[in-house]
């Protein structure tokens, strides 16, 4: 679960508009995609002037983008030398998805508490359509709708906002870039819907936490396959999934 839902009802709509206005964020997305798909390899140097020329932008948003990518963990930015691609720590990925799971769990609890039978039935129908989606792109669109409904049902701008503050590790084209993502999502939402039908707040919570954890494992595997996952220190190997 990754891409921001396009529901006009949610505050996310405004957030997307704000994001689209920023060229720095567009550069971040562009470069992140290139790193993720291996077009830019580990160790490769990113020079602000060259990137600015390639993209037809000024240096300022490019520089901001490199700083943001440094904060996300993809590159190391050096003030007068641009940046180089570093690879991302496995533990950062795991922690990221655990933390997102914790927020989704709270959202799941709210939905389980507030959704009517009719609203749950509508979610089930949408989920069935997701299962029949012909390709990854239509699955992704339907998934956005599903998430949009969850956020609307939870009616908590703060919980929704909490998901938006941490940049996604693979925001765009998630289901394209993580092959098992679709199956994980579909199965995870099946468990979640089962909990909703049973009226179990705890199970709804757990279903969404487990779902995020599974996505985390899949993302680590995908990034590791292109050599992008690095170990921070010996400490990374000891960390166990947060239950």
């Amino acid at each position: 679960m990754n891409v921001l839902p396009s529901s006009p009802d949610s505050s996310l709509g405004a957030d997307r508009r704000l994001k689209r206005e920023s060229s720095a964020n567009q550069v971040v997305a562009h470069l992140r995609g290139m790193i993720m798909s291996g077009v830019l390899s580990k160790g490769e140097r990113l020079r602000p002037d060259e990137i600015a020329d390639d993209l037809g932008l000024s240096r300022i948003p490019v520089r901001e983008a490199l700083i943001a990518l440094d904060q996300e963990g993809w590159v190391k930015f050096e003030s007068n030398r641009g940046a180089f691609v570093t690879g991302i720590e496995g533990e950062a990925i795991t922690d990221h998805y655990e933390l997102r799971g914790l927020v989704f769990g709270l959202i799941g609890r709210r939905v389980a508490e507030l959704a009517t039978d009719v609203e749950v039935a509508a979610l089930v129908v949408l989920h069935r359509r997701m299962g029949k989606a012909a390709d990854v792109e239509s699955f992704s669109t339907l998934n956005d709708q599903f998430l949009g409904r969850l956020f609307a049902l939870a009616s908590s701008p703060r919980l929704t906002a909490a998901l938006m503050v941490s940049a996604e590790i693979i925001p765009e084209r998630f289901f394209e870039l993580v092959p098992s993502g679709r199956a994980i999502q579909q199965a995870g939402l099946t468990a979640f819907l089962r909990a909703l039908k049973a009226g179990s707040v705890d199970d709804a919570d757990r279903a969404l936490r487990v779902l995020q954890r599974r996505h985390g494992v899949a993302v680590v595997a995908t990034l590791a396959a292109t050599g992008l996952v690095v170990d921070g220190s010996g400490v990374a190997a000891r960390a166990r999934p947060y239950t």
Partner: protein
Amino acid sequence: MARYVRRLVFEGALTAGQRLPQDDIADAVGVSRIPVREAIIALEREGWVHVVPHRGAFINALDDQAVLDRFALYGRFYGFAVTRALQKMAPADLESLRKIADQLAKVSTAATFERANNQYMSTLVRLADSTRLRAVLRSTAQIVPGNFFATVPTSIEIQKQGIAAIQSALDAGDEAAAASVFADVEYRHALEVIKMMNARRRAHASPRLANTASTA
């Protein structure tokens, strides 16, 4: 400016659905247009306002549920912190935490308690050693303006008991127990904040009654 707006919403001076009077607030705080735009972006990210294009920013309700949600988030994030800290800490680290906790137990005034509590919590976060956790905590702003324990003094005792329980769980190496202490403590804080907020709003709405209104 964001801090000013959060305070106004907490006090009840800005109410749910109200349009944020950007120019008035900018003047009051003494900032120009650009910081105002940045403040609104931050406020929307945190869930305080929602932006309607061409019409402005509107205040989201800071109702009981919003408070419960925010503290539930803290409970989960700190629960995560203590779990990671327990996985990674060395005996010397446990000893440092114990020393800080012992100091904390002896302190009672809001100012000194806040300092000691910050020391304890930031040590836990440091021991968790997680860049993502730090990023998430940085972007989760407080509901309660200023010194939390000065505003909600009943929370001092709650936090003391909580930290004592955390220490027991840490000594026992029990991750699950440590995490669930935070969930419980933050929930109890939320209830105190709700009481406080409602009392302040009653006082704000009817200043004449402020002296006679009992605290919830």
